């Protein structure tokens, strides 16, 4: 009996990787999914923090896809290793801070390591030629295969017919004739294929799979790098950039203002790492201060904190300041008015 061949599919949670996996499963190959968590993935997080989003809890799309396909999913934490990809992308960034080509190379390389360690035979991705400006061009397809070290163990079922035959095709593990030749940005072929497989209710992420393609998020990350004088980050930084209103009144500090209770609860968890401010004479949001403020800066931070609470129209507001070591201070301040906060303080 022929040996049962095994493939690992990179599952992002979108339709393409789902169709790629399904195409190969239809050929009798054992498929398992792999999903890499870089810290920037759009899944979860913000909806978990913000109360307003809780009414419509979102599913984790990668898990959902795996369940629809009836395959296992291995979710791998690559937060630490991903730093090097994001901070020093050999092939540069896309429109924002998205290092898509290096990211693809990195993920396929990780998948290659996984394949070797787990006795699998090849890797599949949902890439489509010409679909994304940076990472899915005809010219970049061989770069991903080569620089990831996956070479011809990397099969892209949705556009395989436009590419040279890979090892699984040459060896006859999969029938090349039953693979596809999709190109370009139109989603019609994928939608037709989804219908044929009876797949509906799939997710269609607009730009890409992570926060790095988001203009505002990238601007906040860039601001963080500028403020700390080096391109580096901790996982907590990545999380905090997704939460609250970020206001930078000066190079040496910024404020993160909770926009609602859920965010306030989340920020509470950081009170032992950051200075925090909360109005005591009126209701208002919890504010974290990131940086090293002078006494005057603290005064300004307190006036901004007052501005976002119910005392915004009051003459004076008492603001409690708590330091990471537990020390406390109270300031009585006049709330800033809306016009006192220049637009370019908002990140």
């Amino acid at each position, binding site marked *: 009996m022929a040996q049962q061949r095994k493939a690992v599919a990179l599952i992002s949670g979108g339709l393409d990787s789902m169709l790629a996996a399904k195409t190969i499963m239809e050929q009798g190959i054992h498929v398992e999914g792999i*999903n890499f968590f870089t810290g920037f993935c759009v*899944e979860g997080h913000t909806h*978990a923090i913000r109360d307003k989003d809780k009414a419509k809890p979102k599913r*984790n799309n990668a*898990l959902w896809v795996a369940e629809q396909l009836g*395959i296992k999913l291995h*979710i791998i934490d690559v937060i630490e290793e991903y730093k090097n990809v994001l901070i020093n992308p050999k092939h540069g960034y896309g429109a924002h801070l998205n290092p898509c080509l290096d990211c693809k190379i990195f993920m396929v390389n990780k998948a290659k390591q996984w394949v070797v360690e787990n006795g699998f035979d090849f890797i599949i991705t949902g890439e489509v030629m010409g679909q994304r400006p940076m990472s899915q061009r005809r010219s970049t397809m061989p770069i991903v295969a080569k620089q990831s070290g996956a070479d011809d163990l990397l099969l892209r079922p949705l556009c395989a017919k436009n590419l040279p035959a890979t090892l699984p095709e040459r060896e006859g593990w999969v029938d090349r004739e039953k693979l596809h030749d999709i190109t370009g940005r139109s989603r019609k072929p994928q939608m037709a294929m989804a219908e044929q497989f009876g797949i509906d209710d799939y997710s269609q992420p607009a730009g890409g799979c992570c926060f790095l393609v988001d203009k505002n998020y990238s601007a906040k990350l860039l601001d963080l790098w500028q403020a700390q004088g080096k391109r580096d980050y901790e996982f907590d930084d990545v999380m905090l950039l997704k939460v609250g209103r970020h206001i930078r009144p000066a190079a040496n500090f910024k404020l993160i203002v909770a926009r609602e209770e859920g965010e306030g609860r989340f920020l509470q968890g950081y009170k032992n790492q950051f200075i925090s401010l909360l109005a005591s004479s009126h209701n208002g949001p919890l504010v974290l201060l990131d940086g090293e403020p002078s006494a005057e800066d603290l005064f300004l931070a307190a006036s901004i904190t007052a501005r976002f609470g119910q005392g915004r129209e009051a003459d004076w507001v008492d603001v409690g300041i708590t330091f990471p070591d537990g020390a406390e201070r109270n300031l009585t301040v006049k709330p800033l008015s809306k016009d006192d906060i220049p637009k370019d303080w908002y990140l």
Partner: protein
Amino acid sequence: MNREVLNARRLLCPMPVIRTQDKIKQMQPEQLLEVQCTDPGVMQDIPAWCRISGHQVLETWRGDHEYFILIKVGG
């Protein structure tokens, strides 16, 4: 039966799922694992992960902004 406990409080999805997955890798079939979380997303994600991975969710319960899941490790 003894149950192991995984504290995944303050972690946001999918980190609690990843921690659960990594913890279960070191456990034996039939053992029990209680996962303690603060992200409500786990109430969907951990059971979904258990379904596709062959583990059984025996019980879920909630506290004050806390969520608990009891899992029996599959074979």
